[in-house]
């Protein structure tokens, strides 16, 4: 049994997001809109010593199964994260998150003068122009986006 398994209790049904870059856990919660107000049972471990990375964060959300859009968000915040779907204490699916070629809807363009930030009925689309360098570009205003300043919509 790994050390981390001792820190965070096992869950029956839900999602375990593992190998989040140490310190990014709270940002992940924010992006995925996981919060206590919704009544989700959430277990968070921050800065857990890890062989693979130096330190990692772990989030367990009971009775919530992460979908593709959520996975996309993770790829921008912490590309090394893994997503484990647990059903009846069994690991039924393990996903490595990966950046898609385009990201729709979930982030707002950081350019306040962009048409996607206006009252028009329009959803943001970001093209991933460099997966390694994590470079995103707004398809509408063509500005390169600072991934550290992205806002979630």
């Amino acid at each position: 049994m790994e050390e981390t398994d001792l820190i965070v209790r096992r869950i029956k049904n839900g999602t375990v997001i593992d190998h989040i870059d140490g310190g990014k856990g709270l940002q992940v919660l924010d992006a995925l809109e996981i919060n206590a107000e919704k009544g989700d049972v959430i277990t968070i471990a921050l800065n857990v010593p890890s062989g693979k990375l130096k330190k990692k964060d772990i989030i367990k959300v009971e009775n919530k199964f992460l979908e593709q859009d959520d996975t996309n968000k993770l790829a921008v915040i912490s590309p090394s994260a893994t997503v484990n779907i647990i059903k009846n204490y069994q690991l039924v699916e393990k996903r490595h998150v990966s950046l898609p070629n385009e990201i729709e809807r979930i982030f707002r363009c950081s350019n306040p003068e962009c048409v996607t930030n206006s009252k028009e009925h329009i959803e943001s689309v970001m093209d991933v122009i460099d997966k390694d360098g994590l470079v995103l570009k707004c398809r509408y205003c063509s500005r390169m986006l600072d991934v550290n300043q992205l806002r979630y919509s």
Partner: protein
Amino acid sequence: MNEFYKKNIISVRNLDKQKLELIFDATDKIIDMSQDKRREIARGKTLGYLFFEPSTRTRLSFESAIALLGGTSLGIADATSSSIHKGETLGDTVKVISSYCDVLVLRHSLDGSSRFAAEISNKPVINAGSGTEEHPTQTIQDLYTIKKEKKKIDGLKIGIAGDLKYGRTVYSLLYGLRNYDVDLHLISPESLRIRSDSTYDIKKELSYTESSNIDEYIEDLDVLYVTRIQKERFPDEEEYAKVKGSYVIGSDMVKKMKDDAIILHPLPRIDEISADVDNTKQAKYFEQAEYGKYTRAALLGLILNENGF
């Protein structure tokens, strides 16, 4: 089929050298054509325009271009103050106007507005200025002017001076110049340098120097492209007053320039080029404005005719 047929013109990023040259050739053709032949090119066609920022100059340039080709125009010259704007979204307005015309010309204050409009419009959209993002038809006109006046673009020393941060014509021009082998100097106050988040993808193809001092380059330039410095872009009056004078081109400065250098400006100018420059042989901004009618006519002719003209 010509590749511009029913296509949008949103960004100069999508115009490679071959496409630009195709428009320049079409422009030459229009200039050389008889008036009777020109009028056949867009006969029975309608240009719709929608200006959410008033720009009499650009609008008239498009209107005179379509008239030259025998077509007509209709639209809204100042959509922000007209009744159509009250509560109505850009999307709805575009939908309505595009159903009345064969090609839609849009000017709007938001970045990306033309790309959005093109998704909604069932007619091709021409971006006539989108926020601080782009102004592609201005660049076509600018490059054509350089080509006509200097007989080439490759190999030239080009200086772009003024407000480079917010000037949409500047970005389109940079994307256009990326197709050519030019020696480029960007001259502006420190606080008005070009935005790196809008030029990240052209850095590999286009090298340039950035400087605050126009005197460093003035003697060597083949082309000096001047843009307006807007007072409202400065945090305070004092800073504006400090830099204002150093970017005004007067006849003294023109004397330092090469004899065959040219001075361009997208117009309207306020006081960044003084009136005494107008009579120098380097001043080409009025010629540039006139070329704009022909480059726009060429573009419209290509968009509206499957087999060109």
